[in-house]
């Protein structure tokens, strides 16, 4: 219980806090914002390096846990934030909102997510969630001269506050029943309390709050508006980082703390997952704005990712983790193209004839679209395959059948982008000139989507090792 050991365990978060503050302060001195962005990347890289060297264990009276599970999720956060920073610089400059706070806010949201992934206590979980959410509310409204961005931020904030209240309410009910907020202790004390009505209420509140974070239907209403209004790199980030953080806490809270009522929460999650897959995919079909389309697609992908948690087995959790990891690359990759096109690529119809004007970017977009559909040999297929495998092994074949049919439905709207790019004549000329960081982000995401599609072996092992720590 000694203090220095506890401090050693949370070293990554301490470093990240310090570095984020330094970035915030340096912003006052350094006029060239690209330097700040670069420092942001360094800060994440340093934190990532420290995470690799932290021993597993519990700290601060078991509030904080460092294990392979949290490490895996933290890497998803780190990777998605680095890719986001790479995509942000030119975009913010073009939108005339290139301020340094952007990068420190991003770092703070990553810090919040890290705490979420590492929380072994509902209070820390709540704090992490709030830190993440508050930073992202601001980032959503970062285009301060744009009414849509303001609207999105306000909407997100109001609904987010509502979901925080639900979360707190759920936590308080749990505390009422068990007298503790520690996940492990909750699990021990709940064994005798199974199926108490109050527990069901608590479960519903917690599930609703988490469903809001991962944008699962029927708590998805905010996401299309917010995704559309937010700066595109932040949309990319939101669709991956906070979503993964939401899954990290769902996994930990439901499987560890509420393990004794697994039957009940599996039913709840199953309903959420089914609705999410159906509504997300069906509504995506009729969208005309690419960011809204990707928002609905992102909702649908939450539905798929829930499958692994519903399976409830270690294999299932691993498949959700691997899926989120793969999803990070393919979704940010797709958003990278949207970002690079900037104002030229807001509507889906803007992609008409892109295959002729910009063959390279069109080809890369094609890869991401097929990966999101889940067609081999891309990473998206491997991720879905693993999910289906785990959910079928757990005995939910019907759910898997629904999921595959919904993937077939999703082919329609993903392929529409491909169709417009390659099968229509360009109606205008645009010039696309990505800068070096953007090109780097696209190279990384494309490379990994193809690499994980062709030889997923190492990534599966990575997820496996993380779970067994």
């Amino acid at each position: 219980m000694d203090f220095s050991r506890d401090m050693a365990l949370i070293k990554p978060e301490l470093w990240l806090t310090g570095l984020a503050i330094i970035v915030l302060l340096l912003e006052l001195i350094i006029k060239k914002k690209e330097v700040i962005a670069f420092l942001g990347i360094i800060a994440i890289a340093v934190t990532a390096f420290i995470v690799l060297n932290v021993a597993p264990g519990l700290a601060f009276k078991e509030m904080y846990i460092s294990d392979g599970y949290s490490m895996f999720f933290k890497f998803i956060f780190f990777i998605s934030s680095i890719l986001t920073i790479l995509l942000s610089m030119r975009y913010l400059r073009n939108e005339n909102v290139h301020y340094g706070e952007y990068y420190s806010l991003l770092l703070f949201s990553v810090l919040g997510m890290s705490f979420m992934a590492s929380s072994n206590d509902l209070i820390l979980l709540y704090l992490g969630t709030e830190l993440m959410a508050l930073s992202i509310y601001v980032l959503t409204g970062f285009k301060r001269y744009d009414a849509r961005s303001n609207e999105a931020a306000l909407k997100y904030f109001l609904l987010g506050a509502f979901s925080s209240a639900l979360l707190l309410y759920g936590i308080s009910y749990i505390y009422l029943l068990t007298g503790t907020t520690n996940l492990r202790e909750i699990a021990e004390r709940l064994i005798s309390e199974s199926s108490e009505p109050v527990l069901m209420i608590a479960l519903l509140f917690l599930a609703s709050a988490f469903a809001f974070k991962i944008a699962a239907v029927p708590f998805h209403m905010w996401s299309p508006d917010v995704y559309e209004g937010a700066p595109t790199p932040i949309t990319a980030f939101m669709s991956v980082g906070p979503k993964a953080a939401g899954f990290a806490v769902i996994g930990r809270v439901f499987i560890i703390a509420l393990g004794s009522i697994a039957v009940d929460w599996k039913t709840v999650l199953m309903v959420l997952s089914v609705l999410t897959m159906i509504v997300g995919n069906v509504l995506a079909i009729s969208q005309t704005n690419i960011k809204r389309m990707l928002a609905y697609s992102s909702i649908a992908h939450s539905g798929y990712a829930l499958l692994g948690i519903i399976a409830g087995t270690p294999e299932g959790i691993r498949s959700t983790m691997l899926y989120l990891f793969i999803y990070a690359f393919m979704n940010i990759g797709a958003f990278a193209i949207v970002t690079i096109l900037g104002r030229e690529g807001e509507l889906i119809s803007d992609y008409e004839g892109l295959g002729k004007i910009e063959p390279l970017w069109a080809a890369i977009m094609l890869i991401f679209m097929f990966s999101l559909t889940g067609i081999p040999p891309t990473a998206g297929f491997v991720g879905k395959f693993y999910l289906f495998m785990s959910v079928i092994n757990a005995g939910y074949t019907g759910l898997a059948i629904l999921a595959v049919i919904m993937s077939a439905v999703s082919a329609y709207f993903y392929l529409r982008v491909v169709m417009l790019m390659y099968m229509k004549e360009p109606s205008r000329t645009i010039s696309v000139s990505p800068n070096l960081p953007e090109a780097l982000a696209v190279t990384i995401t494309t490379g990994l989507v193809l690499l994980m599609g062709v030889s997923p072996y190492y990534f599966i092992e990575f997820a496996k090792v993380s779970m067994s720590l």
Partner: protein
Amino acid sequence: MAYPVLSTVIFLPVVGALILLLMGRRQELAIKWFSLIFTVLTFVVSLPLFLNFDKTRSDMQFVEVFEWIPAWNIKYYLGVDGISVLFVLLSALLGPLCVLISWHSIKDKIKEFYIALLLIEAAMIGVFSALDFFLFYVFWEAMLIPMYLIIGVWGGPRRIYSAIKFFLYTLAGSVLMLVGIIVLYFNGGHTFDILSLMSQKFPYKLQLILFWAFFAAFAVKVPMWPVHTWLPDAHTEAPTAGSVILAGILIKMGAYGFLRFSLPLFPDATKAMAPVMLTLSIIAIIYGGLICLVQSDLKRLIAYSSVSHMGFVTLGIFALNQQGLEGGILQMINHGIVTGALFLLVGVIYDRSHSREISHYGGVATVLPVYAGFFMVFTLASIGLPGLNGFIGEFLIILGGFKASRLAGALAATGIIIGAAYMLWLYQRVFFEEVNPHIKGYKDMDLREIITLAPLVVLVVWIGVYPNTFLSFMHESVKQLVIKLQ
């Protein structure tokens, strides 16, 4: 064997596609020559499969195994037996022909077209040689991407509708098979190894469920009635090379799937469901044939004739006896050659006239005599004239069909008569009668076009006169299959 034949045949086109990717967009001639060289090279390296295949064995040959994803027990596992070897060869043969026929007809996005063509060839050959379910599924699905683009980008006026229809139909069928594959994995001792799964016996109920899951994928691909409606659209709108690949190889993958997976993996369910399959086959034969009689569009007519011909193939397969199965396999090859050739021929005239309407033509035999000669050979092969390849296949199938059910055999024979009716009537309307003013002054086939079609004429006669060259490949493997079905 000095080199891993199957891997070379699969990855040579991929390497070609990668090199094309790096070539300049404007070097059109270089791109074409390069694709031609690579497809010819692929065919040449596939020849050991023909020459060194041991026809006395029924097991897998030219086997290559490597660990791929050990965590899920997935292997990179290739091999061919008497059932699949001919399809690998046919795919490799059609590759260069598709390049040749597209030489002048593809004018837009040339580089992308040949990349797609090379990738599709690789995936097709992969499908026929994969012995691991995961690998098989990867090839099976990966093929959809280039095919979707080939139809949608370089196709006819209704190409976009046809491309998405093709994609959604096949994807919807395939994903159900994917669930089936995973269920099989967990019930078969956590393996995707097709051969080891084949050596197991599954409970009847499971067999039945899986049979239908696989049926969803294969029936759409074949295509069997009533899920055939994507085919006329896709065939009609695709560019010539696309139609040739669709007719020649792609739709064979469905029938191959039945042969390779459904029959040996679920023998009891297959036997129980054979009457249903025979009925569907008969409906396809008759219905497809009747539809052909009312078509006014050349390509659409040939497309519907594919539905009818593939009905024969599935009839042969689900007759579940030696003659029927061998006839089915041979008829798949025949249909690939003949219908592939007919689409090539339609492409030849379409390049000149840009019309697919039958009424646009008439008296073509007067203006393009060489062309008329070629068309005659394949028309006769298609209706099964003795001495040409179609006869052998259909004869064996009807023989097998009679053994399985007299009614099925009789109805199938009626289908042949309908086939003769629509093909000969088509020939009469296009090639005889008065010369249509539209087609005056058209040039006859040039050397490139003759070179494209000549190998297929040779094959049509070869199989028709001495089918044993090809039947001998499959005797042993089919014998094993029939024993398994007893």
